[in-house]
């Protein structure tokens, strides 16, 4: 996005016309025809609920009356084992799933960018396909594929002599199922983004490196990947944000179970808010998610962003 923004900065100050002052004033009201509807919607459905949510996180419901409780909801957060578990689960996804997926996507993008590859468009389409499926539909399909009795995956495992696995009801395997399904959906998506980045780098560098006697893999790792850093950063940040907001997949696949093994903060806030109707606490959890997203994005930016330019 930064690339596009520099272009915009140049034009930013150019007014709509060279009209003299009084006429420009008249024109300056016409913009409301265009920006008015969105502004009203933002105030009503973004600014207001945002402020309400901050206020709400300092309140609790006592016998049907909302009362101010100061930091009590935030103090609850610290001692909540389920929230802690959901954060541990998320951390595990961030440490295992995201790097594995970005790594796989990088390999795929590298191969898809090879000059000798045929049917590049076809391959790209096939790899992108999982990203366009309806979240709920694909979670449903994975739930059926991973069914313990007679699910396709277990049948195949049986077929090659390894016993079946209780995919969705065992804590460890449920986590692995979640990792598998997220990786299935998003690897190709990231590969296509990385491929677009690779194509912007150009072929000359491969040729220069191969004249110097470097192999294809060495060239890719030493010469190409460092230049791809901004795009890798973009993929890591969007994947991290997606992981921190995870809801649909684990809600449909496991409902956060077994024993909260696949619980995530957003699913937890959904349960607290809408199953237990504990709105104040749900709001406090929501702000933890916001804070985490901000923090992790910042850290990634610092770590990967260094030397990116």
């Amino acid at each position, binding site marked *: 996005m930064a690339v596009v923004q520099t272009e915009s900065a140049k034009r930013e100050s150019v007014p*709509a016309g060279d009209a003299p002052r009084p006429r420009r004033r008249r024109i300056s009201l016409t913009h409301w025809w265009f*920006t008015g509807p969105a502004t009203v919607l*933002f105030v009503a459905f973004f600014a207001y609920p945002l402020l309400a949510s901050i206020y709400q996180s300092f309140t609790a419901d006592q016998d049907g009356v909302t009362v101010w409780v100061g930091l009590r909801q935030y103090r609850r957060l610290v001692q909540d084992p389920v929230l802690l578990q959901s954060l541990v689960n998320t951390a595990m996804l961030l440490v295992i799933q995201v790097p594995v997926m970005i790594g796989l996507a990088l390999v795929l993008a590298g191969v898809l960018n090879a000059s000798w590859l045929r049917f590049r468009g076809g391959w790209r389409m096939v790899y992108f396909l999982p990203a366009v499926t*309806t979240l709920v539909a694909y979670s449903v399909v994975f739930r059926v594929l991973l069914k313990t009795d007679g699910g396709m995956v277990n049948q195949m495992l049986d077929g090659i002599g390894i016993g079946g696995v209780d995919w969705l009801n065992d804590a460890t395997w449920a986590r692995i199922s979640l990792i598998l399904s997220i990786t299935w959906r998003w690897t190709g998506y990231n590969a296509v983004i990385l491929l677009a980045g690779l194509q912007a780098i150009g072929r000359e560098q491969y040729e220069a490196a191969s004249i110097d006697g470097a192999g294809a893999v060495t060239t890719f790792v030493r010469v190409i990947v460092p230049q791809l850093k901004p795009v890798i950063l973009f993929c890591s940040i969007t994947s991290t944000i997606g992981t921190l907001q995870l809801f649909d997949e684990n809600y449909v696949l496991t409902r956060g179970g077994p024993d909260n093994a696949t619980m995530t903060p957003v699913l937890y806030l959904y349960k607290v808010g809408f199953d237990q109707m504990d709105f104040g606490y749900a709001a406090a959890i929501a702000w933890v998610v916001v804070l985490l997203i901000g923090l992790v994005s910042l850290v990634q930016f610092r770590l990967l962003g260094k030397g990116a330019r």
Partner: protein
Amino acid sequence: MNPRILGRAGAYLVLLAGAVISLVPFYWMAVAATHHTADLFGSPPPFMPGGALMDNLSRLQNEHRFGRVVVNSLGVALVYTVLSSLISAMCGYGLAKYSFRGRGILLGVVLATMMIPMQVLLVPLFQMMANLGWTDTYQAVILPFLANAFGIFLMRQAFLAFPDELIESARIDGASDMRIFYQVVLPGVRPQLGALIIFTFMSQWNSFIWPLLMLNTEEKFTVPIALNQMIGLSHVDYSGLMLGSFVATLPIMIVFFVFQRQFVAGLLGGAVKG
């Protein structure tokens, strides 16, 4: 053997394996939709399409009124797409081509809504809808997310690149601001508008958590909500579920195959140049 050829063969093999993994769930979904549930988990599981498609379809229709659900989903997605794309395009145009007080603030709000996860808004929005008495209505599903920050930003970038001279000359010819927008400017950003429309349609068609909170009556369910309800039943109709998932995926797949270029552009946003 030549190591280069060996390397290429290896690379193709990796690609092929990945492609199979990508496609198998789709294939299995289509196959499962044409078999009876009883046969799905047999040994070996079916690998070829069966003859139970019509049975599954009529059961899906009779027990879950799935036709109605699909119409609901299409209706909500279409209304949302038209209104949201229009509002986003207009706001993007206002931000790009008019200078006015508060423009910086509005742009800041647009960027902020992209950073702040919508989950923060869930509880207050839910209460708001309850207070308005809008729970279980489509306006509650559609209205809160109509002003789409990503879309506004996408369109603003598109309009910034649109030449001011064309707008000026149309103005000199006496065209009104609205007319200039619809007849001069919008046709000029057709590719980005296409990407916006596809992206908007898809996000509403796939939307899950908010409609799940808002819609309670089965007759009003959208496809994801109906699928979610089916999987929660004590006796799960797996082949019906697979057929339903197939139906849920089909429109997006068709849009994807027809508009692949805009589709990728829309999803990637301004992430990568070129």
